[in-house]
């Protein structure tokens, strides 16, 4: 079933393993590279002899320590085979719950012919040359790209290593390689019946030539891929031994709790810290331009100290920032600004003129926080000769670069110890919190763990942008969409993310993704974007562009269907004749959800469909709306075609969690700003879906051998439109603004009625009421 609880199947690279020197050792021991760098740039790589491969050049200038530590077989960036013990896989993507340690290990293991219990996995150190991911073109984990990006390269890496091991064994036995095969970490010979473990071949294999273009297994030959294997990271997560960034313990470490200027862009004007310094356990009070940190032996003392500080802030004009103003500004920009073209197909204007009927709507979406369960934190030790950083990050090289920039040292002198992530959702793609932590840590000689309180984490998040979108359609005589225009207005996430920014007038593809290409055959399309960067920083958020655009498009397609009196599923299917994969998932979702079957009053089904991240996902949401406007989810049915699944259970988990993550935000979440300050602060006012609001959810996976699509964000993209469409079906109220305005769903007159629990016999004695209740009553 699964291994014994207690022994994690993943490990953390020891600091000495992570040092530049030992990385050199690791990699010098190998004869060639199978990091992303080689295979992702196959053309370039082919033009270079192996010895001149830039990643090799970068790491083998013959450092003094080169040699000794790892004397096993290190075929490139991902695989380490020692002579004894477990094989180590260096996983290029960050594990943040999506199961990528397991999924990427399965890709390597499949072709290397090992089982997962023969391997340990470790996170990759920062190294763009080795681990730059082919789709994102940087060493980062996001955008539902990991499996898609790793699908080819990791299997190639495994296959090449296996081929070399087989060749080494064949040479030793003096048999033809085609009489040998590998299985479960051993090479076998059919001819002589002998076998050798990989560990016995690690010296011999180095003499083997590096194979090129090793044929990969066909889907029918997969032993691991496509099977629901136990995840490698989860045993440690059920017994408390998993180490997240916030759990890091370093000798002599102190803990810092911050207060950041309440208004983004403001500064610390003055500080009175005498009171804070008298709190037992407080050792230092540090300040930077826009924040102050109290340093103590433990978090609690630091927090108590922080409460004693008297702080004066200079909001520097940012107190004028409010979300109301920002939204008004977006509307103004939408109506008056200069759009950047996203996609044009056909002649939208003419088609609109020729349309039998037109539908128009405005949709508004709020700023959103990430609110990962693990509050943002970074542990930093600035030494005279460099810097160590312990953190859970989606972008290790961004962390390295951020620290190097603050300290003015070369990036390779920054050691990044990446850790498990207690929720990413895009938050940990940026390293601004690392910059801040290093600014504090450079002031002290000891290692400093900077932990944000939940309040800081939410108020000083970098938010998903707010949007103001005007969408219109012209319908033909059959009622189907003949033309769709969508004018999107919002800030540029890419512009905020790229260190160089995004020049004005350049399209941010993220801003239009999910609207520019829909699953439907719509002959005339014009999607454009008006860039209006808000006065606060923005960031990726789970589902990225599609999470915003698909909500608008899929809510609006529903409006179009209803405008001509057609069933939303049937209407969509009629526009999917050229998209069999999407047709199939939608048709299946309708069938599995009982689409069209009668429902109680104020109860409805809503559907959404999209093709984001290379996957096809249909979701049916069944919801009941109480007379008081409360939305009760009854059932969720998702059907996904994500091509070849690597670990189907992980796919299912991602769709379940992704859908519910999106539902949670759609129901409850908006970040609002008044006088420059974020109004939300913790889970009491940034509400999250709880288990007692969670309906049963079914995920059906279409069997496919197409290349894998992304799944980490697909469910989130589907959630809001399916929910909003269900609410419309239940109540006839079309909500075009998120989050769902539950007060707008109240029945007429309900505001004057007492919202009471169903009648319970109040007069009954306690004993009569207690039957069958939880036992063990006394506290």
């Amino acid at each position: 079933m699964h291994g014994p609880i207690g022994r994690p199947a993943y490990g953390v690279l020891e600091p000495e393993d992570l040092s530049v020197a030992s990385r050199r050792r690791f990699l010098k021991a190998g004869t060639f590279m199978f990091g992303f760098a080689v295979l992702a740039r196959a053309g370039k790589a082919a033009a270079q002899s192996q010895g001149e491969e830039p990643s090799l050049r970068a790491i083998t200038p013959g450092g003094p320590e080169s040699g000794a530590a790892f004397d096993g077989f290190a075929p490139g960036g991902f695989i380490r085979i020692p002579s004894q013990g477990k094989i180590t896989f260096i996983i290029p993507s960050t594990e943040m719950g999506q199961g990528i340690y397991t999924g990427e290990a399965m890709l390597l293991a499949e072709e290397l012919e090992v089982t997962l219990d023969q391997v340990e996995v470790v996170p990759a150190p920062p190294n763009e040359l080795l681990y730059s991911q082919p789709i994102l073109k940087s060493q980062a984990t996001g955008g539902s790209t990991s499996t898609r990006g790793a699908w080819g390269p990791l299997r190639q890496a495994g296959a090449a290593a296996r081929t070399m091991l087989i060749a080494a064994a064949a040479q030793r036995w003096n048999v033809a390689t085609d009489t040998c095969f590998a299985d479960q970490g051993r090479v076998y010979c059919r001819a002589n019946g002998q076998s050798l473990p990989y560990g016995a071949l690690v010296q011999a294999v180095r003499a083997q030539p590096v194979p090129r273009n090793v044929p990969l297994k066909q889907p029918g030959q997969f032993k691991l891929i496509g099977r629901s294997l136990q995840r490698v990271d989860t045993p440690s997560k059920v017994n408390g031994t998993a180490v997240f960034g916030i759990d890091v313990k370093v000798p002599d470490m102190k803990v810092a709790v911050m207060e950041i200027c309440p208004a983004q862009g403001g500064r610390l004007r003055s500080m009175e810290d005498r009171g804070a310094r008298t709190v037992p356990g407080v050792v230092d009070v540090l300040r930077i331009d826009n924040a102050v940190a109290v340093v103590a032996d433990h978090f609690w003392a630091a927090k108590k100290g922080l409460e004693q500080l008297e702080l004066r802030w200079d909001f520097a004009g940012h107190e004028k920032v409010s979300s109301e103003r920002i939204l008004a500004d977006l509307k103004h920009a939408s109506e008056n600004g200069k759009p950047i073209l996203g996609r044009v197909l056909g002649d939208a204007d003419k088609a609109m003129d020729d349309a039998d009927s037109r539908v128009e709507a405005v949709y508004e979406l709020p700023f959103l926080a990430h609110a990962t369960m693990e509050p943002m934190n970074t542990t930093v030790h600035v030494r005279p000769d460099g810097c160590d950083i312990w953190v859970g990050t989606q972008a290790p090289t961004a962390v390295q670069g951020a620290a190097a920039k603050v300290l003015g040292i070369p990036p390779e002198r920054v050691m990044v110890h990446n850790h498990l992530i207690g929720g990413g959702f895009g938050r940990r793609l940026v390293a601004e919190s690392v910059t801040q932590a290093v600014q504090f840590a450079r002031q002290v000689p000891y290692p400093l763990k900077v932990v944000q309180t939940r309040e800081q984490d939410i108020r000083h998040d970098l938010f998903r942008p707010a949007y103001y979108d005007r969408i219109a359609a012209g319908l033909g005589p059959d009622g189907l969409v003949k033309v769709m225009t969508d004018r999107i207005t919002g800030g540029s996430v890419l512009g905020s993310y790229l260190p160089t920014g995004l020049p004005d007038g350049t399209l941010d593809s993220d801003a239009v993704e999910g609207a520019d290409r829909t699953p439907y055959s719509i002959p005339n399309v014009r999607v454009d974007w008006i860039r209006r960067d808000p006065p606060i920083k923005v960031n990726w958020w789970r589902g990225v562009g599609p999470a915003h655009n698909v909500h608008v498009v899929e809510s609006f397609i529903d409006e179009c269907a209803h405008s001509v009196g057609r069933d939303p599923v049937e209407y969509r299917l009629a526009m999917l004749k050229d998209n069999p994969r999407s047709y199939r998932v939608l048709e299946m979702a309708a069938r599995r959800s009982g689409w069209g079957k009668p429902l109680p009053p104020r109860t409805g089904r809503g559907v959404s469909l999209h093709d984001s991240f290379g996957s096809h996902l249909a979701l049916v949401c069944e919801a009941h709306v109480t007379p008081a406007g409360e939305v009760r989810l009854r059932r969720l049915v998702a059907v996904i075609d994500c091509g070849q699944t690597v670990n189907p259970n992980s796919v299912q988990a991602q769709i379940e969690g992704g859908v519910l993550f999106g539902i949670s935000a759609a129901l409850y979440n908006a970040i609002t700003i008044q006088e420059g300050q974020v109004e939300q602060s913790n889970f009491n006012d940034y509400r999250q879906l709880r288990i007692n609001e969670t309906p049963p959810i079914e995920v059906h996976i279409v069997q496919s051998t197409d290349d894998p699509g992304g799944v980490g964000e697909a469910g989130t993209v589907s959630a809001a439109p399916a929910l909003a469409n269900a609410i419309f079906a239940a109540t006839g109220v079309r909500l075009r603004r998120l989050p769902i305005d539950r007060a707008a769903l109240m029945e007429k007159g309900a505001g004057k009625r007492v919202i009471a629990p169903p009648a319970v016999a109040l007069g009954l004695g306690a004993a009569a009421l207690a039957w069958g209740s939880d036992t063990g009553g006394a506290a």
Partner: protein
Amino acid sequence: MKGSRLRRFGLIALVVAGLLLVAAIAFFAWPAKLEAVAPSPAQPTGRALVEKGRYLATAADCVACHSTPNGEPYAGGLAFKLPFGTIYSSNITPDRKNGIGAWSDAEFVRAVRHGVRSDGQQLYPAFPYTAYTHMSTDDVLAIRAYLNTLRPVNQAVAVNQLSFPFNQRYLMRAWKLLFMPRQPLQPDPNQSAEWNRGAYLVEGAGHCAECHTPRNLLFGLKSGQKFAGATTQGWKAYNLTSDPETGIGDWSVDEITRYLATGHTPGRGAAAGSMGEAVSLSLSRLTPQDLRAMAVYLKTIPPKPGTPGSKVNPNPPLMAASTPFAPARAEVGSDAVGLRIFEGACASCHGWDGSGTHSPYGELRGAQTVNDPEATNLVQVILHGSEIRTPQGGASMPSFGRAYNDAEIAAVANYVLRHFGGKAATVTPERVAKARREGE
């Protein structure tokens, strides 16, 4: 004849009107008199005086009204939103321009005890001089001595925004005629010294009646219902009389003392809102002797009925049938919104048996707040949260008003009312909306 009588009547009327006018002008415009003040021989001096003043300023809870949440203490600026406009508390630091540094002692004593500003203008009774008038000259001078030691804050206070005629300060003279006590409280020789000390603190510095007594249309305290409970800015100050049903008639002196000292008494619930603030800033910092004296006095306030139907039910059936970790079986699966919100956001701390699983301040059983069928404070505390910080410890509850809408707050309030108080649900979404406006 007829004409002369008329003429004479007219003359008389004119004279009367004239006299009235003169009287009115005299009444409203006569310069306020300024009595000289001097400490008694018993008044301490030096640091002892300042310390006495600090204690009394704490007892009078000056800082609560004369500070804003993030502002300098005693620098004023707190807004009082009244039906007829907004007034702001004054800067009482010794700053000579914006504070009271330039005031003479006599002017200070007159202001505190008679509601007259240093320039002779009338003060609005949001400043509770109707209570402070009972304080002795020595005590007021001691407070002055303490205030003089504060750091002067050069910070002007916002100008009041009151509509006519409420912006006419001289009209307060008429108000005072109606509502100002005729004379300071006199010790009752038939009562103990402890009782008399309690009366002095409750009626004077403590100004308990200001919140706990209903007000009439002219915003004066209804003397006939003194301490019977009242609602101010959306929060209810409960009945402090000895009424056994709705007051504190069945509380012991010890229980009252403990409540004043800590904001919580086992089986009685915890203070929140303005009372939580009064405990945090003032009462918890008074001596046990003074608190006990206050309790002794409070116990003797004659009973007057408070909110009908608000008698505390210490063990209603649904709560009795619950454990800390699970509700009564009869409620389970009821799919009620209120129960669902409670199990997610509330049960962790309060427990379904109302025991307050993590802090005594989380105890709900026996609390007036969950037994008030009007659910006034229950709705406010859910909307705005609560915080108590005493030298002995404290607790806080977050605010839920931003994330939960009116219908949801109503639902959870009704659930709590029924489960922990055995009271029928009464809260509508519109009531919650109103409470939001009032409590802001």
